[in-house]
């Protein structure tokens, strides 16, 4: 799992050959912290087909503005340089898996 900033976001996310799940979070956000182990598992599950990239919106407010982030945790799937889907708020592991599966697919 990589971290992206305002400087390298386009290189890491928008120009990525794989679909990317972007996790917008902040250090003070307890639900974001609670989501972390779920994302760790998801990164393993989808390692071959998708990358997970974290964006700290406190350190990178420009990215929050650019993508209209009004609540966190916000998870956004970017595919071929364009946003494909997003989900805001706490989400169970199974529902997150279904969200990713529906937008990325893990080839089984």
């Amino acid at each position, binding site marked *: 799992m990589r971290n992206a900033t305002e400087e390298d976001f386009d290189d890491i996310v928008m120009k990525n050959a794989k679909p990317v799940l972007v996790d917008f979070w902040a250090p003070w956000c307890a639900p974001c912290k609670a989501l972390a182990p779920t994302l760790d598992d998801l990164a393993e599950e989808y390692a071959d087909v998708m990358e997970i990239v974290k964006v700290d919106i406190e350190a990178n407010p420009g990215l929050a503005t650019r993508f209209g982030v009004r609540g966190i945790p916000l998870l956004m799937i970017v595919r071929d340089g364009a946003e494909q889907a997003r989900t805001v708020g706490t989400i169970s*592991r199974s529902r997150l898996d279904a969200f990713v599966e529906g937008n990325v697919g893990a080839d089984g």
Partner: protein
Amino acid sequence: MTDIAFLGDPAIKAQALSRLRSHIAAETFVIFPAWEDGKANVIGALVEADDKQAFASQYGYPIAFVTALEGIVNAFRFGPSSEGFVKALLERTPVGADLSRIVPHVLIALLERPDIVALTGQNTEVERWRLAIVALHQRTINGDEPDRKEWKAARMASISASDAVVDNTASHMASLIVEAAAWPATMRTVLHDTLGACGRLESHQIMNAIGWTEADESRVFKIREQAEADGRLAELSGLDRVLGLLDADDPDLARGFRERLEQFEKLGETYRAVGWQIVDLIERSPVPTSPPENVT
């Protein structure tokens, strides 16, 4: 060494107990935060950091159990009962016990709870996938670990089944328990999420039983919010103030709110019961007589 209690080393168990006892003696054992300013919860007390992976690695408990552990301990509330639970957990864990089957056993027990089965049984597909997921966990216990595709197929089907339950809130909440459990027991959040889904069902049923609704909750919030604005009963604070305001404005609502508070005190029963069940399972776990093969 994976899921071997205290990595088979009595000195590690002694260290864990010593760290816990010193926090309890110093009155720095807390529910929250995990590790801050000398205060520590169950995770912080044992690894001196807010680090569940370190807890699992250093003491040999399954990561899915460790991820759920704070929630379980918190259900015992701050003080002697949570301290007693954690002490019992450590004391009753045999050094070298193979803990790799604990989580699937617990997940099966949750999925086979009669109150949950009564709800899942109301929908053919939900019940079908509950049974299928129980069978997958049972295979793990038997040493025949299902592959990723089997888990995913069961998970996606159980989610579809959940989505189809739209006419009964309790049945839908039970179906969410089934889909939450549709992961291998080695996945970090499977027990945490399944317990969370059980807790939400428990909360819903308790509130339903006393007839307390979201509208009641909202009315209490609005009365309190108004008082914050106009300063009514500012001489009181916290719950006393809320109760005073409700007594004055809406005695029926006040009665209901008192009952809601009383019932909420009982919440967490699922977590506490599972906590003791895990301790019992751990105590009975087999201790291999030869070195384990899954050395990392």
